[in-house]
């Protein structure tokens, strides 16, 4: 995890390409491509529009996300979010009002005999 303030991609910024780093990041603008913040927390604010595949430790999605997400720890989809894509993470929280369409893959331990 990073020390200091998270980076910020402001509302009026548009990025196309590969974004990777080693600090927490807040995105308010548009990103198209890939995002890799494998040891960090990514926050997609309500104004964010992402068309990318994402690999993070934790992610909080409050905006629009179109793409697959892989998190090593936790994915949180808030009630303002609209997500299309697959999510793979050990923990996922989806709030009431969130809009989602895609595959969800968490580790599900079923009892024996099911």
């Amino acid at each position, binding site marked *: 995890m990073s020390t200091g303030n998270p980076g910020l991609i402001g*509302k009026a910024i548009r990025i196309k390409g590969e974004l990777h780093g080693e600090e927490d990041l807040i995105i308010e603008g548009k990103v198209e491509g890939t995002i890799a913040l494998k040891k960090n927390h990514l926050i997609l604010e*309500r*104004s*964010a*529009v992402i*068309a990318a595949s994402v690999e993070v430790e934790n992610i909080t999605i409050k*905006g*629009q*996300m*179109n793409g697959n997400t892989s998190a090593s720890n936790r994915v949180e989809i808030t009630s*303002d979010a*609209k997500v*299309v894509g697959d999510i793979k993470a050990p*923990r*996922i*929280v*989806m*709030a*009431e*009002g*969130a*809009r*989602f*369409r*895609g*595959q*969800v*893959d*968490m*580790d*599900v*331990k*079923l*009892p024996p005999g*099911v």
Partner: protein
Amino acid sequence: MAKENGAKENGNGKPATTTAIGPTIIIKGKLRSDEDLIVKGRVEAEISSSKALLVENSGIIKANIKVKSARISGVMVGNVVAEERVEIAPDGRMVGDLTAPKIIINDGAAFRGRIDMQNFDEAQDGRPKSEPSAPAKMPATGGDQPSAAAAK
């Protein structure tokens, strides 16, 4: 007459029945109901209900179900189609596809499968937009591309 431990009152004083399937009960086949169902046992039967379904911690459902709403605190293996809402409680575990207008996954829940919310393109207040949809159960689903304006 046996004690009706499932009966409860609804607003008008008329008993609204709830069926509670106890922890040692195993049901296989098909189950239809027009009353709330609480599953504490094992149901390997397709459930079709116009009311709510509650899968308690000890409950295991291994079948496709079609209900009005569902709350899963136990184990659900199968596809769930709900008219109103599905909630996977923190101790719930589900493998299967979820189709419902409202879906809540609590922290701690485990889920693997597809999630398909109809009304995907509706405004948050529920007014449907009339976009043509890919084949889906409900007519009001829209396309997969997010619209450009996400800001509220």
